[in-house]
């Protein structure tokens, strides 16, 4: 009987080898694996759990410190990414300002240090010491921001385009010849442009630029885009509503054309 079992084992071993060479399991191996797998998974999982648990108990202090350190690193990494994004955006804005056409004037690039949306003003960190004077045009890479209204030695205030007190000449350069008009602020998202010619061929989407009929504001600076056109037959005027190109709340740096 012992010999029989041994002979059977040798013969079956050859069967197993032949099956293995052909890339498959023999029937007994398949059954054994199928039956023992649940126990193997359970026992292996239990040992892993106990091992982890024991490791947690013996290294609790170290793990806590490591966890804390990892959280700090994560926080630092997040802050670093935010800071990098901010700096990248700032570099892009400054590159845009540098790339602005100078309109035959000197550019003084400066930071906005204060913004009063209800007063339609921004405060800049340059003043008369840097050669800044009243009425100079303030621009950013998107277009005209406003004009300098008050100047101190190292500080100045700019009246924004959205201010009702600011009036300047504007041209619809989309048309040829370009119709001219006077632009006034109404709100942060709306400027009024009254054309001198009541028959001016203005339509929606036309781009409005500065006329240049001013000592300080050069021609060809983008102001905004026409979003509505009205005709008043009683007064014989054509009036356009212009959406400003510059959203002041989103910019951090500007250039003064002196």
């Amino acid at each position, binding site marked *: 009987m012992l010999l029989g079992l041994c002979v059977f084992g040798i013969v079956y*071993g050859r069967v197993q080898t032949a099956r293995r060479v052909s890339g498959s399991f023999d029937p007994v191996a398949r059954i054994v694996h199928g*039956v023992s797998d649940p126990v193997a998974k359970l026992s*292996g999982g239990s040992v892993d759990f106990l091992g982890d648990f024991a490791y947690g108990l013996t290294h609790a202090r170290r793990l806590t410190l490591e966890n804390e350190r990892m959280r700090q690193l994560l926080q630092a990494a997040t802050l670093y990414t935010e800071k990098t994004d901010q700096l990248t955006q700032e570099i892009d804005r400054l590159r845009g300002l540098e790339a602005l056409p100078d309109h035959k004037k000197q550019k003084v690039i400066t930071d906005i240090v204060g913004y009063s949306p209800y007063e339609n003003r921004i405060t800049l960190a340059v003043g008369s010491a840097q050669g800044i004077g009243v009425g100079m045009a303030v621009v950013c890479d998107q277009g005209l921001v406003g004009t300098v209204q008050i100047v101190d030695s190292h500080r100045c205030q700019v009246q924004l385009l959205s201010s009702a007190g600011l009036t300047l000449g504007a041209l619809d350069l989309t048309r040829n010849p370009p119709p001219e008009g006077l632009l006034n602020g109404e709100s942060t998202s709306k400027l009024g442009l009254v054309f001198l010619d009541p028959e001016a061929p203005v339509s929606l989407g036309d781009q409005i630029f500065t006329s240049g009929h001013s000592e300080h504001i050069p021609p060809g600076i983008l102001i905004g885009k026409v979003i509505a056109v009205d005709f008043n037959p009683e007064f014989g005027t054509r009036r356009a509503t212009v959406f400003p190109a510059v959203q002041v709340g989103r910019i951090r740096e500007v250039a003064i054309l002196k």
Partner: protein
Amino acid sequence: MKGVRLFSVILIGLWLAGGCQEGLAPRLNLGGASPDFLLIVLSVLGLYCKRRQGAFLGFAAGMIEGSLAGANLSAYVLTRTIAGFACASISHFEFEPNPFVAGAVTAVVTVLANLGVMFVSPPGAIFPFVLATIGSAVVNGVLAMPLHLLIRRLSDPYVR
């Protein structure tokens, strides 16, 4: 322990040992020595078997171990069948098996069975294999003691 109870214990023992051999043994490796659960079950239960039963137990353990290992099935079947037969033969001597005897038998069986595998199917590096076998023999011998107590409790619940 006889008849259906012995058969059930062997069946469950081999099943659990096979599972542990696959999932547990690789995780309990200490310096190359890891327990061989099938040999432990074979040695301890072999002490309660007759020779014929021991040979069949060894044959089954060899088939399982060879199938799990995926190689050298003949070597495992040969060595385990003879080991099972030998363990069962020990029970023919007139002595009451105790945990220490079970541990010693398991250690000796581990060494002989693995040396048998080494001769039938020689491994690449002999010396590390022998060292691992000695380590396994010690681990198996230690683990066989509580298993023997458990089996004895199962065979006779009134034993103190």
